[in-house]
């Protein structure tokens, strides 16, 4: 923002009737903003949770944060783009996550499992290197520029209109898909035999092995499943956001914030933190006030010449990308287990 202060709002006309109209228009605007931001925030939060759930499961299993998790999300988006060019969006929605899931399982089987004996740091660094390599490979194949990944024609219409904002049907579809997967995941984990074995393997792997289950294979499948979930998020988010080789780098750190703030290894925590961060991010982007405005409101004037002028004149919208990290530092400093975590990281 070049101009230090926002131009003063136009004063409403003196006639009471007109002033009332203006106010109701302003109220409408605020209401519209809140409604749309809430919808978008929940949507972003659910997308985050699609990824964070896999990451949390993988962490609870192996005790290692998968740095490459966002890279699998990116792979999902690019595979979705490539496959949908040949067979259309709907088959891609199924094929791309399956492919990424298989790749994830192979990575676990032939990469992570070998590194495991060298300790957690080596595992973390392995996934760090993997993220690096995946980004380079994606850049090599699809280039650095965004690819033209379009919303399927079937969903390319306006679902509803709030005052003046048209809400696209595709966003509703994204929301439904992520909520649907969330419910299925919850049901599988808590209601089925497979889910019980997975849950038991998280806490008592030796006992589960004694009972005759192949725990390493369970780990491999969960890793693959986690990657596939991230890929689903990628396939459906790709057309709505930008499908580009830096998308993993942009989202990865936020994903870590989600799982750490929620409490490492806690699925409910990841859910709450996803929604929280989704909402905070979306609302922050739409607030256009700065510290200078705040001081201005209490009678202090700060302009471009005052010391630390940058700091006072930054708007909330501009620092929106920073807020999750501030939250992370705060949470870890005040409550190291995260919101719902039971173990100290």
């Amino acid at each position, binding site marked *: 923002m070049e101009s230090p202060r926002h131009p003063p709002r136009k004063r409403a006309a003196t006639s009471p009737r007109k002033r009332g109209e203006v106010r109701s228009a302003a109220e409408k605007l605020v209401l519209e903003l809140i409604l749309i931001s809430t919808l978008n925030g929940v949507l972003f939060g659910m997308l985050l949770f699609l990824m964070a759930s896999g990451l949390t499961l993988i962490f609870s299993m192996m005790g290692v944060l998968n740095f490459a998790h966002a890279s699998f999300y990116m792979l999902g988006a690019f595979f979705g783009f490539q496959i949908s060019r040949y067979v259309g969006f709907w088959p891609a929605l199924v094929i791309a996550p399956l492919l990424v899931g298989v790749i994830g399982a192979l990575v676990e089987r032939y990469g992570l499992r070998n*590194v495991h004996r060298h*300790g957690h*740091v080596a595992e*973390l660094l392995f996934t760090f290197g993997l993220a690096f390599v995946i980004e380079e490979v994606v850049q090599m194949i699809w280039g650095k520029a965004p690819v033209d990944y379009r919303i399927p024609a079937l969903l390319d219409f306006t679902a509803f209109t709030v005052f003046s904002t048209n809400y696209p049907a595709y966003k509703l579809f994204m929301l439904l898909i992520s909520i649907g997967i969330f419910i299925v995941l919850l049901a599988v984990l808590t209601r089925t035999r497979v889910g019980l074995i997975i849950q038991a393997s998280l806490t008592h792997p030796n006992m589960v092995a004694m009972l005759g289950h192949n725990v390493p294979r369970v780990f491999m499948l969960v890793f693959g499943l986690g990657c596939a979930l991230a890929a689903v998020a990628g396939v459906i988010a790709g057309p709505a956001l930008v499908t580009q080789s830096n998308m993993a780098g942009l989202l990865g750190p936020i994903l870590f914030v989600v799982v750490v703030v929620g409490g490492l290894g806690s699925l409910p925590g990841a859910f709450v933190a996803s929604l929280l961060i989704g909402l905070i991010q979306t609302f922050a982007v739409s607030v256009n006030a700065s510290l200078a405005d705040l001081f201005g409101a209490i009678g202090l004037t700060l302009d471009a010449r005052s010391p630390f002028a*940058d700091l006072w004149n930054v708007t909330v919208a501009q620092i929106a990308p920073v807020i999750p990290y501030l939250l992370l530092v705060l949470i870890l400093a005040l409550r190291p287990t995260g919101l719902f975590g039971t173990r100290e990281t």
Partner: protein
Amino acid sequence: MTEAAGQVGNQIAASRPAAPAGSWIAALWRHAIWLIAALVFACLPLLFRSGTALTMMSLMGIMIIFALSYNMLLGQTGLLSFGHAVYYGLGAFFVVHAMNAIIRAKLPIPLPVMPLLGGIAGLAFAIIFGSVSTRRGGTAFAMISLGLAELVASSSLILRGFFGGEEGITTNRTRLLRVFDWNFGPQIQVYYLIAAWCLICMIAMYALTRTPFGRMCNAVRENPERIEFIGCSRTFVRFLAFCLAGFFAGVAGALAAINFEIVNASYVGLQQSGIVLLAAYIGGTGHFIGPALGAILVTYLQIMLSDVTEIWQLYFGLMFIAVVMFAPGGLAGLLMMHAPLLRARVLRLLAVPYVLLGAAASIVGVGAIVIVELTHRLVVKTTEGTVMHLFGISINAAAAGPWLIAAVLTAGGALLMRAAWPMAAHAFSDATAAVQTGERS
């Protein structure tokens, strides 16, 4: 990896010459390695005279300090940081602003002391951020360091006044007070400045590892709980190590600022933090000298590989993964593994299997490189035609022949490697066993 470090440490401690205290010849002998290092630093520009070599050696010197300071955290104290570039970058920014202020005010301060200022800036920010982040070790520390790094990196794009936005902030290193008539215009003078600071920092950091504090750091890495039982605060040891690492990172950043005369937001970025992690780990975090080796190698590859191929970062990442998977001790770990064999003069037993393994690895490497480069040509650089030059040979990427040859090379090499790996491993364990029985008898 960490156990190996401990063992080597013990060996060094045990093999210390029992010279009478005060004997200056013995003292000189003990520190001979640093004299040799000083000599090497002084003579290198005489051997490599070209401008490229000089620039590269300057960058290597900076990277050595940076990687060694990083290893104070990862190798010595067991703290995995993803945001070490924060202190490097902030040191650089403070030095550039200070230099500009000194030039404006015409203060009588010479350039060679500026890195100290960078170090102090790094230290100050390490104190601030460290007080938040070092309360926990392990994954929590890694995550906080990542969060702080993102915080600073994002702020660097917002606070334009201090960080100079995307174009960065420039300075002029020649306009400070002159000493001995050196204006630090020519690269050779900057090289000697960097070399001197590199040597000072290396000695200081090595000396730190020999102090009780250095040992406490190792203890925190190995078993933080026990530290509390002997009446020490692991948090405080971590905090201190973090601050010192921040100081040396600041020195490295200041030298980089002096070398390039420009700093921008990429100095504090995650990429820079990633590079130093790569350098330290590839070099080997278990030995003091490891990160220095890694810094030299990584800087060399960064400059040379980027000339040869556009996708050098991919090779870089693959190399890193290979080190993590197959040689978690890094280069230094691999070399040190063979030190006892070298002393016992049984290294020749390993020659044949190692040559076989090396040959197999090279075949796989060549095959894989050809496949990657062919793909790159076909997919990315389609506009430049399908004929390309690789290893000095002209190849048509659209023909089947090169692909077939590459596939055969990769697969065959992989099979050879599978055969050669156990041979090398056996030869190594046999030789080690022979040395051990020899020592016992």
